């Protein structure tokens, strides 16, 4: 399941829901991304996430389907917020539930790596020097690239 929303979400409730989907779930992995108060040397007072609504839902649904095809997941969930967020606020949640923990961990990392490099969101940070568009990071591209091969080989 995917959700793109302005509102906050409840990681514990979502983990409980996915973990309780069936008694075949042995492990639930979750990742929450939060707004930090600094980017390198610059102080960040808030950030605003812009996205491309028509593409976002389509793209997230496609990557969720790919995760479910690559790993034996009982369930998986991606929630991504947009709008203005302050330091400490939650941005994104990925939850994966599987019989075995490695599938849950791998699928969760795959999804967040993908979100960082392919989901059509853009962050603008409010700093004392003014508004700054966040630049994409090479390390995110490298993280995403590791999933291009055969997942069984990793």
């Amino acid at each position, binding site marked *: 399941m995917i959700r793109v929303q302005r509102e906050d979400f409840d990681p514990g409730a979502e983990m409980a829901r996915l973990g309780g989907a069936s008694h075949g779930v042995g492990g639930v992995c979750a990742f929450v991304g939060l707004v930090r108060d600094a980017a390198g040397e610059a102080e960040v007072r808030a950030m605003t996430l*812009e996205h491309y609504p028509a*593409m976002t839902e*389509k793209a997230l649904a496609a990557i969720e389907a790919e995760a479910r095809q690559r790993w034996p997941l009982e369930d998986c969930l991606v929630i991504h917020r947009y709008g203005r967020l302050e330091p400490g606020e939650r941005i994104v949640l990925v939850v994966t539930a599987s019989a075995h923990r490695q599938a849950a961990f791998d699928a969760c990392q795959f999804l967040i790596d993908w979100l*960082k490099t392919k989901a*059509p969101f853009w962050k603008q940070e409010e700093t004392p020097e003014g508004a700054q*568009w966040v*630049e*994409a990071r090479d390390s995110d591209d490298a993280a995403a690239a590791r999933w291009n091969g055969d997942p069984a080989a990793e």
Partner: protein
Amino acid sequence: MKIIYFAWLREKAGVNEEDVTPPAGVTDVAGLIEWLKEQSPGHAAALADPAVVRIAVNQEYATLEDPVGPDDEVALFPPVTGG
């Protein structure tokens, strides 16, 4: 053809989205971008560096070689920074 801009491409182009009718010779993304650059100094600035322009045609990632036509929605944006 509908063109949509995001993030700093939107700011530089000075427009969120626009309906355009390129000449018949514009048949692929590369041709479209060259034509858009001629439409205003803002467009030229937004699209100056092709290395930082990402393209989606009808909400799917596309390359410079992909075809575009009158009914397409073409989005132009910098590398994404979500997650």
